């Protein structure tokens, strides 16, 4: 029986329990008019419904896992299965095909061997369907009756149901921890494997990056895994070039929007900035690769360079900077808004002009928040992938010339992992080590930044 049907069954049984329990609770009332139930009838109903639905759901999930195996076993026991090929995968495929036909998932068999198995499959499926159904009903009945018998006028059903609800809420918030753990574990495990092949010193301090995915994984060459050029490229593009664009423009935008723009103008310009923030990075990447990079190359020629790169760090950095503008602007906006009005009034009352007030009072006062915002922006920029994948290079250069090609950590992660990740080669695993470094760095930046912002906001409250 398909899980969907069992699911519906569970819900149906739950509903039945719900209705029965509610009727029961009402009957207490009718039996003794004026009696005050400890909980509303609907809570009695939910109590019983949960007691039915949860065990049934547990059983159903268990059953969907084990019943295919049971079915297959009983089919294999059938005479028609005796001449199946011995090779596991092919046999599995034939069985699957037969099962698909038997369950109606496929119209007909491709493989004649499978045809003979369709009927045994049908029989087995039907048999186990009945078994599953019977067990489901039995469970529902037992738990349902047990819960039902506990209903009394003074039964505190609400507290119990609410406890279940709280459990669900708690479980939902634990997913966040699980995710973080999942990230850390998946990164750490593979990173440790990588460092088993390549020394962390080579990785962190080497200056030559050129993993060879075809090299023999048994004899990894540590000298090919020096990640310094990647770190440099990442910092150069994300933390230097992009920030040179994003910080002044973002800050000035925030200042203009909060201090100068009329409400009408702001009503138009702010959403425009928000849209800029909502443009997917792949579009920026396309824009960088198609429009900005060639323009920068032409610029390189006009500067007399003999051979400017068409995937210069500058192109990726500039576009990334534009992408970050709205982010910096909104962070700066928040920080400036957090400076008490009294500061602004104090300065204006001294006869300062608006820009003097902004430059000498508001911005210095908001500085911790702005710096934290910039840190978040940097963490965003160095983790950004698509722009650099599309517009930066894969060549690991250690250079300070923005017109040269450079690569970044994220570009290399994508390069090493697109396609088949075979988890036993240092080239593939290096992506996880890079990811781990990236994770740690962005985590550090975020952590500090969030702390600063929080402490600093509290200071003015």
């Amino acid at each position, binding site marked *: 029986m398909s899980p969907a049907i069992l699911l519906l069954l569970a819900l149906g049984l739950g509903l039945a329990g719900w209705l029965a329990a509610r009727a029961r609770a009402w009957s207490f009332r009718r039996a003794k008019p004026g009696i005050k139930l400890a909980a509303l009838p609907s809570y009695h109903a939910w109590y019983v419904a949960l007691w039915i639905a949860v065990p049934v759901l547990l059983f159903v999930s268990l059953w969907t896992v084990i019943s295919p195996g049971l079915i297959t076993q009983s089919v294999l026991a059938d005479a028609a299965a005796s001449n199946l090929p011995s090779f596991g995968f092919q046999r599995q495929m034939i069985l699957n095909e037969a099962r698909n036909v038997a369950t109606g998932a496929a119209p007909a068999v491709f493989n004649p061997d499978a045809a003979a198995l369709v009927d045994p499959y049908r029989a087995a499926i039907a048999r186990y369907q009945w078994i599953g159904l019977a067990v489901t009903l039995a469970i529902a009945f037992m738990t349902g009756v047990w819960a039902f018998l506990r209903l009394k006028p003074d039964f505190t059903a609400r507290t119990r149901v609410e406890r279940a609800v709280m459990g669900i809420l708690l479980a939902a918030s634990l997913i966040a921890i699980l995710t973080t753990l999942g990230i850390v574990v998946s990164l750490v495990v593979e990173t440790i494997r990588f460092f088993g092949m390549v020394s962390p010193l080579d990785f962190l301090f080497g200056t030559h990056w050129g993993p060879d995915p075809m090299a023999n994984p048994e004899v990894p060459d540590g000298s090919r895994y020096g990640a310094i050029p990647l770190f440099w490229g990442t910092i150069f593009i994300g933390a230097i070039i992009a920030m040179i664009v994003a910080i002044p423009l973002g800050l000035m935008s925030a200042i203009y929007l909060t201090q100068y723009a009329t409400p009408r103008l702001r009503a138009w310009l702010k959403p425009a900035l928000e849209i800029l923030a909502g443009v997917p990075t792949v579009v920026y990447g396309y824009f960088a690769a198609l429009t900005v990079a060639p323009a920068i190359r032409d610029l390189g020629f006009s500067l007399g360079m003999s051979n400017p790169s068409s995937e210069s760090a500058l192109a990726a950095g500039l576009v990334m900077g534009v992408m970050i503008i709205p982010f910096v602007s909104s962070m700066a906006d928040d920080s400036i808004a957090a400076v008490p009005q*009294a500061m602004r009034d*104090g300065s204006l*009352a001294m*006869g300062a002009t608006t820009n003097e007030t902004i430059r000498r009072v508001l911005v210095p006062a908001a500085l911790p928040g702005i710096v934290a915002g910039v840190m978040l922006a940097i963490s965003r920029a160095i983790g950004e992938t698509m722009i650099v994948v599309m517009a930066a290079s894969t060549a690991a250069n250690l250079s300070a010339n923005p017109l040269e090609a450079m690569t970044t950590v994220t570009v290399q992660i994508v390069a090493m992992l697109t396609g088949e990740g075979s988890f036993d080669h240092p080239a593939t695993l290096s992506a996880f080590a890079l990811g781990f470094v990236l994770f740690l760095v962005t985590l550090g930046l975020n952590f500090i930044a969030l702390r600063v912002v929080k402490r600093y906001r509290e200071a003015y409250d």
Partner: protein
Amino acid sequence: MVTVVHPNLEDTDAKMQARDVSVYYGDKKAIDEVSIDIPTKYVTAFIGPSGCGKSTFLRTLNRMNDTIPSARVEGLIELDGADIYRSGMDVVQLRARVGMVFQKPNPFPKSIYENIAYGPRIHGLAEGKDELDAIVEKSLQRAGLWQEVKDRLQDSGTALSGGQQQRLCIARAIAVDPEVILMDEPCSALDPIATAKIEELIDELNGSYAIVIVTHSMQQAARVSQRTAFFHLGKMVEYGRTSDIFTTPLEKRTQDYITGRYG
């Protein structure tokens, strides 16, 4: 005119003159046709129950309510005979001439020195470091703060106590050499000892500047001011010598307020 002006109020030089001033926040009238002369040589106190418009009116005097988009001023306000709301009026200059001290001390999050030096610097009042140092010292001295802070001018202004902060704000206002100083409940965030210091300071400054002080404490008004205006529901109800207002109020509302019947 709705205001009762005490008859035995002698004529003095008026530093500022308000004539039929009304202030609106959007559609709401917060000040209703107030006319008053701010004398050059005295301390004028604005008193009245909360929300009666004291702060609002005070802020019209140096156009600080320009910063509130919804605020709108009608009527005439003159400083030395020149309309401060005329088009072409230079607000920056106006505010340099009409200083302001706020209810909650609001030193800039900079050093004490920088707090004072800020005004002279933006207005270019000092040439060179020495002059600036001199201005800072003089202002702090006038504000009675010099002795307390002279050894720690580089400490942050926010590190001072509340009373010291407020005196710092007064020193800051003095530093740009204003002609009028407006104070909006300058002591309401302070303890009695700090309050006493500020009152002392106001006494000292009296005569050098035209001073307007908003206060919710009648005792304070009685102590520091020579003129008192009583506001009620956006109107100026009564105006006169402080001693007259407190001893022989002419209006029932004033009397009720002074005797604590409402507020």
